[in-house]
């Protein structure tokens, strides 16, 4: 028992030393190397996962048919063709997303940084994505992250030198001040739920909201521009005995399938 107590103390001491060294910044280079190595691996798996799920959805891997005259070579050629077609389709989609972003940013005064998504973290505590730009590119904590034509997908939760972690809007700890598009006042808070839903809460009972209304950022927070698209109201939950009503939103972006993002680093305000 005494030996166990000693082991427990020893291991706790080692952990304590590592934590202290981290906060003193003495493990920074080791952490950066490790982060780069892990990021590379995660990025590969993330890309492969998205690629495979697309191909499965598009039926790119059809069941092999019985060999026709010409046989194996034809099948191999067909497989190769289908793979290339899927790759082109992915590139087309990425190109279209980048064009919408370009359109959005060329018509605004925001300064932004583009980044690739290299991984995803679905811890019970965090629903986040990992991107390959960080402090070196001017990204700071709480900078808004958008895709396509100004669709808000989250805020930067942690920044490292060359990578950053983005807390998605469906994360339980995510909060964004929001309003219904066209309104002139802030309406409530968009909150995430376990990485599976997004709702608009804290909406006063006297406000009229209905399914189909578009919810956008109200710009009340620092660094957050007004009018970034968040989602469309699907269901309104209104109970007379409660002070606030809430609504379930359908997000404008598919949060499970994000490959390229833009981080707004300066709103020009």
């Amino acid at each position, binding site marked *: 028992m005494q030996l166990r107590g000693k082991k427990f103390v020893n291991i706790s001491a080692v952990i304590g030393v590592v934590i202290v060294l981290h906060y003193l910044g003495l493990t920074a280079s080791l952490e950066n190397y490790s982060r780069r190595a892990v990021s590379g*691996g995660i990025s590969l798996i993330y890309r492969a996962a998205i690629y495979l799920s697309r191909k499965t959805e598009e039926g790119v891997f059809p069941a092999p048919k019985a060999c026709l005259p010409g046989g194996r070579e034809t099948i191999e050629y067909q497989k190769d063709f289908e793979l290339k077609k899927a790759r082109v389709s992915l590139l087309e989609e990425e190109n279209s997303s980048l064009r919408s972003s370009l359109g959005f940013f060329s018509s605004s005064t925001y300064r932004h940084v583009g980044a690739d998504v290299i*991984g995803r973290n679905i811890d019970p505590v965090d629903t986040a994505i990992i991107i390959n730009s960080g402090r070196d590119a001017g990204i700071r904590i709480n900078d808004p992250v958008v895709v396509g034509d100004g669709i808000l997908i989250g805020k930067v939760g942690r920044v490292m030198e060359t990578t950053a972690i983005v807390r998605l809007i469906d994360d339980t700890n995510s909060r964004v001040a929001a309003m219904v598009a066209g309104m002139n006042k802030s309406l409530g808070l968009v909150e995430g739920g376990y990485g599976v839903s997004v709702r608009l809460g804290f909406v006063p009972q006297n406000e009229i909201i209905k399914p189909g209304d578009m919810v956008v950022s109200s710009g009340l927070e620092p660094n957050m521009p007004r009018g970034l698209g968040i989602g469309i109201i699907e269901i309104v939950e209104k109970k007379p005995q409660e002070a606030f009503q809430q609504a379930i939103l359908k997000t404008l972006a598919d949060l499970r399938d994000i490959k390229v993002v833009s981080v707004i680093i300066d709103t020009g305000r």
Partner: protein
Amino acid sequence: MPSSRVQLIGAGLLAIVSFLAVILHFGLASVFAYPINKINLVVLFVIIVLLITESGRTVWIGFTAYFFMELFSLAPFGAALYSGTISALISFWLYKTVFANRTILTTVALTAIFILIYRSQYSAIIYAVGRFSGDIETTFFSQFASYGWELAITAVAAGLAHFFLKLFIPKLNTTKLRK
């Protein structure tokens, strides 16, 4: 080969396998749908390594894996590292003294206990840090539903992993532990 060199190679291998486990944990999160994506592959990996090696090195594997996990976490540095390593240590002791066998039921129970200890400590640390910094998340306790999914899915996956690994690793067929 000198024992110091063997130890060094062992430590290198240990870091590599932990590294691969963390990559799989993060990478595969995007493959599965909710709630299967709540599976904790690092815990599953630590438990399987414990069953195969029966060695205290498992604790250091846990330490290395949770160090890598910390690099991509939004929680304060140290929360996952401390909780994960101490949970691995307690699981190792429980395995050697309380369970003292290598059945599938032990694997499932040990995985569930690991996650229970890990999440209890992790939540306590986050809560304490939140109180200290005055930034307490109001929905903090609502995450227990998510923890429940993590526990259930990882425990079942560990049981299945044990069942299938038995076919390839004869050692897992014997229920008695090494003295």
